[in-house]
Structures are given as C-alpha cells and as structure tokens.
C-alpha cells in the first residue's frame, strides 16, 4: 500500500508554474530520490510534502489521510536541510533534544532517545559540542540525528551532502544506506547529482521543468529511459545523440542512415510508424568503441577534440563532421595522439527518439 500519495499536485508562484500535475506513489520503507537539474522543482515538491510550502492544487495523502491542511510539525515528517540548519546556540545534544523539549517529554525520555540516535550515528562523544565546533560531516550527522529522534514516518532530505567534499560525500552516502537498512523508514531524498541518485535510490524520480519525466528503479531508467531527457540525464558520460534519416521501414526492421556514417544499417524494430522520416539515435558510450571486430558495427569517422584518461577507461570526445559531439569509450587502450579516428557504433545499444525527444519503442 502506498504510504505517501501525491495526486494531481501543481504549484505556481505568480505566473510561473513550478510544478505541473505531479502524481506519485511512495510505499512504506522505500528510499526515493528526486533528481533533476537545478530549478526543476525538487525542493518545492519536498517542501510541500513537509508542509513548509502550501500545496497549490491537488492532494497529498500520508497513510491515507489528506495532509494538505495539517501543520508541518504534526505530519510525522522530519527534514534534513542542505545548510544543516542546526541551532548554533545549542549543543549537539540540545539540537537533537529540541523537538522533544517542545513536545514536553520527560527529561529521562529525552536523554534516552537522544542517546539512542547518537549511538546510531556514532555521535556520543560530540554531544556537548556546539555546531561551530563540529566538522561538516559531523554537523550533518547531528542534523540527521535531530530528524531521527522525532521518529518520523517519512524522512525528507534536501541535498544534505552537497556541502561536503567528495570523499566525505561517498562515506556519508554509505552511512545513509546503512541507516535506511537499520530504520526501514521511508526516505525521500533530493539531489541534482545523478550518481548519488543511482547509488541511493530504490526508486528514482527524474524531474525536469516541474514535470516528472519518469520514475522507477535506477537501472530500469538507465536501460529503458522514457525520453531523451532521462536518457541524457542518467549515466556519465552523457548518452550520445545523433540525427538519423529513416531510409526504409520493414515489418521487423528499419534501415537508418546516421548523418556522417559510412553506410546505412538495419535495426530490428517492430511496428515502426512509417510516417516518421527523421529520428534521433541515442547510444551510450559503452556501445561506442574503436575496435572493428563487432559485425553489427557502424563506422563513423570523427576528429578527436580531447581525451579523458581515467586509467581503466579512456573517453575520447570527438567531433563528427556535422559538428555533433560523440564520446567514444576505449577500455584499457591508451591514447597515443592522433586526430582522426573511426568510431564504431554497436547497434544493439541504440535507442530511438522522435524529434520531440519522446522514446520510440519497438512493439514486442
């Protein structure tokens, strides 16, 4: 059963539509990540769930109860902010105890709850320090602890790791996964970092321009994106896109001519709409190499623009004759200079999109 249901939610600030008709169901215990470029409305959606922002139109239901008019403090949600938002004049202990103190819990209960949370987060030795005396990672843990002691039904995180350095971010990410395993509480996490989203999410919600583009398991989104935006947003380096003309449409395959390619090629496809003359071809870098042995390969002459050598893989950013960028991945081999190359596309990795960017799927 869905624990959190968002139905037909829209939000606008004046004339600007920030969220457009959002529908989403989240089950109990899920780790859901909202991901999307800056300004796409992730924080706004999260803040509407928390109650800090009014819900424009539509409904949000928590455990079956409409919470549109419920006070933020009574919704059973706890939020962790990007800026940590710790109270600087209180110790870590007092920060974590604040909500309990407001709720007039007994001293002994407060101590017990805070210490339990501190134990989970390995903060015991820091409880008497003020936020100013804590490192970024420690502050973040106190902020999470402050959420934990409230025993919320849903945790909300708004880019909690983006103020940390890369190494600490990776470590905190692992800790969050462990925390989720331990608490088994629903968590909603906002980030614009797709790697963070892929590693954390049970369910990933890709947003763009105030619209949910697609949601599902991270690898499902990776393998089977619903549109060009999702395809391009997930995966690093970005998926390559090229224009192609549809030369012939048969019942079980189509023939495509990619601009600049040495020859046309066939792609298995059923039920292609023969009125389409132009499509966009998307292909991830792992299907673009330099070796010529794959017999399904399409050759594409290109000029090397620059090279990223990461040791295990080398990414060659090349320019196609029509000016488009194509990233070629080479495993193991090292770059030995040279400007001209011939990229080989493995056609099994090709995804098709129409000119509006929607995915064209083969009928099964």
């Amino acid at each position: 059963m869905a624990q959190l249901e968002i139905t037909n939610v829209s939000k606008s600030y004046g004339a600007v539509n920030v969220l457009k008709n959002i529908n989403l169901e989240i089950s109990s215990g899920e780790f859901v990540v909202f991901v999307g470029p800056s300004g796409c409305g992730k924080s706004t959606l999260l803040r509407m769930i928390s109650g800090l922002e009014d819900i424009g139109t539509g409904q949000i239901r928590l455990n079956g109860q409409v919470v549109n008019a419920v006070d933020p403090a009574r919704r059973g949600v706890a939020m962790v902010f990007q800026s940590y938002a710790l109270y600087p004049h209180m110790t870590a202990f007092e920060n974590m105890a604040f909500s309990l103190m407001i709720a007039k819990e007994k001293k002994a209960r407060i101590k017990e709850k805070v210490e339990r949370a501190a134990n989970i987060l390995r903060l015991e030795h820091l409880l008497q320090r003020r936020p100013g005396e804590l490192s970024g990672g420690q502050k973040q843990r106190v902020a999470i602890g402050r959420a934990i002691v409230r025993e919320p039904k849903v945790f909300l995180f708004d880019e909690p790791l983006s103020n940390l350095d890369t190494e600490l971010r990776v470590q905190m990410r692992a800790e969050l996964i462990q925390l989720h395993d331990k608490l088994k509480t629903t968590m909603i996490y906002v980030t614009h970092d797709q790697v963070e989203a892929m590693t954390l999410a049970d369910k990933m919600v890709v947003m763009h321009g105030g619209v949910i583009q697609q949601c599902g398991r991270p690898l499902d989104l990776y393998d089977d994106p619903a549109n060009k935006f999702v395809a391009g947003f997930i995966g690093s380096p970005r998926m390559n896109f090229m224009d192609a003309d549809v030369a012939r449409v048969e019942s079980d395959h189509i023939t495509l001519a990619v601009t600049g390619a040495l020859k046309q090629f066939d792609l298995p496809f059923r039920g292609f709409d023969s009125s389409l003359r132009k499509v966009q071809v998307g292909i991830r870098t792992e299907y673009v190499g330099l070796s010529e042995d794959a017999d399904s390969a399409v050759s594409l002459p290109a000029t090397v623009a620059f090279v990223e050598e990461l040791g295990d893989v080398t990414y060659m950013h090349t320019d196609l004759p029509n000016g488009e960028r194509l990233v070629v991945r080479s495993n193991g081999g090292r770059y030995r200079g040279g400007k001209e190359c011939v990229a080989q596309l493995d056609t099994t990795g090709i995804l098709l999109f129409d000119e509006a960017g929607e995915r064209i799927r083969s009928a099964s």
Partner: protein
Amino acid sequence: MTAEAITAYSNPARAVALPFSGWALLKWITAACIAIVAVFPIWWMVNVVFAEPGTPVSLNPRLYPTSFSAGISKILMIMQETDYMKAYYVSVAYSLLTIAGVLIIGSMAAFEFALFEFPGKRILFATVMLSLMVPTAVTIIPTYLLTASLGWLNTMQGLVVPGLASAFGLFMLIQFMKTIPRDMIEAARLDGASHFQLYRYIALPLSKNALVTLAILTFMKTWGNFMWPLIVAPSPELYTVGQVVGLFNSPYSHQTVDIVMTANLLAALPPLLFFLIFQRKIVEGIAMSGSKG
C-alpha cells in the same frame, strides 16, 4: 648590554620582531597623548573631590588626590543632606525599565519584521524608519501633550513609556535578525515550535549580542537624558540624577565648587563603570550599528 643583544638588535630580521619599532612607538605616543587629554577632566574631578577644599587650585597645585577622608565626607554629606540617593533610585529605575521595555518591544517587533511577511509590512516599516528622521525637538511637544492628557505628568510611566518605542533599536534588531537563516526557522517549525517558541528559543538567543548592545546604548541614552525628565516630571519627587546635578550647578546654588564636583563625579560614576565593564561590547555595538545601520 651584552654583545649578544647588540648583534640581535642589528640583525634586521630580528629587529622587525621587536615590539617597539619606531613607527609603533610614534603611534603609542600619539595614543597616550590623546588618552591624557581625554582622561584629564575625569582625573581632575577625582582630584578636586579627594582633597581639602582649595588645595588643587592653590598657588602650589597638586595633580593627585591628597585627602581621601575629605572626599568621603563630601560624598557622605551629599548623600545625607540632599535628595541625591532618591535621584539615583529614580534614574536607575528609569534606565532599567526603559531598557527592559525597549528590549522586549524591539525584539518582538523585529522578529516579525525580519522573519515574516504580513499585510502592511512595508508601510509600517516605512513609518518606523520615517520616525528615525524626525528630530526629538519636533516630537517632544506632541509627546508631552499626549503624556499630559493621559495624566502621566510626574509619574514613572510618564517618564518611561514614551521612550520605549525605539526606532533605532528596532532597525538594529531587524538587521540582525535578518541574518538568521530561513532554514533554521523552518527546522524549528518542523520540530514543533510555536510562533512564540520560535521567538523565545531561536530568535532571542541568537540576537543576544545585538540585545546587549542595544541595552548598553539605551542605558547611555536614558542615564544622560536631561530634557525629557525635566519637562515631564518637574516635581522633586521624580528628579533624576541629571536634574539634581543641574541644581548643584545652577547660578544661585550655594554649593562650593568641590561639592559640585562631587555631585558630578557621583553622576558620572555609573556610566563610567558601565563602560569599563562592557567596553568591548560597546565598541562592537557601535561598529555593528555603524556598518549595518
């Protein structure tokens, strides 16, 4: 001087590290001169009080106190034979009540202005700011008339209440509270804090520095306020220290100069002590209200 010290001094790298380079010395001397000029009147006051009458201005003047007991007896005389103690009490009550009121009213108003939106906020704020630009000389008569028609002449509330709405204090506190991050207020709301609890547990403690500064500035202003007590509370019952000192200084007073000096010294003592205790805060506060106001 040992040979070692000489070489140390002639070594330029070491010479820089010495506390007194020529430039620093010059600066210290200048500072000392200014300090002497500033401190001398106060020192002279102390000198006159703690001396047998006439000694400091005799043909052979003394620049240091010569008779402790003479000073004490003058102080005792003022305390016992005049209403000075009562004036002290009035001034202290006047100052403390004003400080308490200014802090409570100012911080509550600043909390709303700085952190929340409400209808009419801009107009209200503009009105408050406008009152900053109107000099006291313009407002003092209407304020007096209002106080009079409330029947508050010669009362403590007549003295205190008109001074409670401090536009300057409000402005300073607003600037300060604006720096409280919105996230923090929202976090506290999610933690269940009510509107008043946000004020009590978040805004107020975080504004401690600004409040202390405002308290000090308010003290300085009320303790030294002469005009308002003079017109609103002319009855001797409510004489403040300032007014009493004024009586000592008046042309027909029969007090000798050393008694007048004693009265002055007693009046200057509280702000002086206050300043010594809160010196750092005051400097910070002036810097703060200067850079932000």
